């Protein structure tokens, strides 16, 4: 396939713009996000309100900028948390092997069978809604893709000559992992992390949409969509805008992640020829 860095560059630019706008929201937003102007409810776009207002007369653009903070933060935290946990578990399984590997593989199989949304609903039911239960719900099932990838790649790398050489030279196992194994995993794991971030962003929005994520008076993109739904016919923009932002961000992240995964996996294949079959995780 012909490579299209243009698309990925454009996606990166859009993503950077959105993130920057959300970070600078307090300075960029034309109005405070909770400011109500009941005289201008469900107003169409105008010079005063670029994206119109919602059913309480709150400025949609300001709320979009403010709401992004929750969605992006939780998705980013979940990505980092699951990425670190999954990588550690995957690398340790593949290096130690034996019963530890067996145990983690089994745990992975178990979690793979649990529907993500049901686990999230269950945890929110037990712990109550909020940041922490949301993060926990995403982490409990979310580490498995990272663990599978890290395990398979570590198996691959471990079979290669320089690892054996390092061991013979007397390098400690932790040194080998940090110096020789992890650098080889960095690329593919980064691609995976990017893709997962997009999926987490969508899931966070879904849970907020269901009223199980962010709690009022705070808001995020999913909660905005849910609140706007009864007024969709009168002011379609109130539901179009927050969903479109989630879609655009998720799309950019997916494009970047797929590109990263493709580039780094090609490099892996080229570097590790002749390839060796790995026990599937």
């Amino acid at each position, binding site marked *: 396939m012909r490579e299209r860095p243009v698309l990925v560059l454009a996606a990166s630019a859009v993503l950077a713009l959105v993130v920057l706008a959300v970070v600078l929201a307090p300075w960029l937003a034309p109005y405070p996000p909770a400011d109500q102007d009941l005289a201008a409810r469900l107003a169409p776009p105008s010079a005063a309100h670029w994206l119109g207002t919602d059913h309480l007369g709150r400025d949609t653009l300001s709320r979009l900028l403010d709401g992004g903070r929750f969605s992006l933060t939780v998705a980013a935290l979940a990505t980092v948390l699951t990425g670190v946990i999954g990588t550690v578990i995957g690398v340790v399984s593949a290096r130690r092997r034996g019963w530890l590997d067996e145990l983690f593989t089994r745990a992975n199989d178990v979690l793979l069978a*649990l529907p993500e949304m049901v686990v999230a609903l269950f945890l929110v039911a037990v712990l109550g809604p909020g940041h922490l239960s949301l993060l926990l719900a995403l982490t409990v099932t979310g580490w498995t893709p990272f663990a599978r990838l890290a395990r398979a790649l570590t198996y691959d790398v471990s079979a290669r000559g320089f690892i054996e050489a390092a061991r013979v030279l007397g390098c400690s196992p932790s040194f080998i992992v940090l110096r020789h194994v992890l650098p080889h995993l960095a690329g593919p794991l980064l691609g995976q992390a990017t893709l997962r971030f997009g999926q987490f962003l969508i899931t966070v929005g*879904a849970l907020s949409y269901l009223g199980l994520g962010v709690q009022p008076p705070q808001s995020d993109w999913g909660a905005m969509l849910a609140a706007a739904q009864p007024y969709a016919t009168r002011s379609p923009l109130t539901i179009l805008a927050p969903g479109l932002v989630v879609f655009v961000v998720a799309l950019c992240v*997916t494009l970047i992640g797929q590109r990263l995964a493709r580039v780094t996996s090609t490099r892996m294949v080229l570097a590790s020829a002749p390839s060796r079959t790995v*026990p599937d995780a």
Partner: protein
Amino acid sequence: MTAFLARRAVTLGVTVLLASFVVFLIPYVTPGDPVRKIIRSRVAGEVIDDSVVQGLAADLGLQDPLVVQYLRWLGRLLGGDMGLSYASRTPVVEQVLPALGITLSLVVMTLGTAAVVSVVLGVVAALQEGRAADRVITTITQAFIAVPEYWLAPVLVLVFALNLSLLPSAGWAGPSSAVLPVAVLALRPTSYFTSAVREGMLDALGAEHVVAARARGLSHSRTVWRHVVPNGLLPLTTLVAVWFAGLLGGSVIVEVVFAIPGMGRLLYDAVRNSDIPLAQGGVVVVVGLAVVLTTAADLVHGLLNPRLRGHRA
């Protein structure tokens, strides 16, 4: 093969036991008095008096060790007794079974649609590899996974139900009410299926027996239909089974938006109303079925791929 089967069976059993134990613990770990919560799920009337609560707790064996209580609960569950829903005061099982039927038909329709669409798209993309058709199909189907269901669903309702009045906006009555939910739900599996079919087809196209068939002088279409397509579609079979399990619990958003009285809607209502027995029954059924389906998918995978049986558990 026997070892492979045995390992899968053990994993299946352990998973189901672990999951059911966690579900059993819900009334004990949520805020409030577990004894009162359990009595509420077993006795039809409202119990307020403390001495009556004490008596009922003794009758129901709520002072026994947790393990004994769990085994008793598990026994009742296997007998189809999931207690009474807090909200409706009717047996949970009477709500779970119809909801399960609706979600199953929703999932079957979704996977059928996704499979047909992705086979067409994947085969075309693979045969046109690198050309415009391939690039368009690949890019668009990849974008499908970035579409939030809670956005697409209301937008489709707005366009097709409220503005054009072509389809019903909500409910579950007749084939027309299934069109929008299935369209929304099918988007994500279509994305993954199409890429799997495309990859499978490309692998099959490069296989030696295909080259041999060409060398024997078989026509292009005959080679493709006889030798490439059957092998190329193989990866799709396990993927469909895996997605079957995933969609059972993954239709929450769609069922809530379209007011479909399925399992997703039931779980959502149970959580919102803190209806513990209903949540327990719903989670046990969804997770149990998902685990069985995932194991079945693995077995099919093992049967089709004898090489995996040794390593993989």
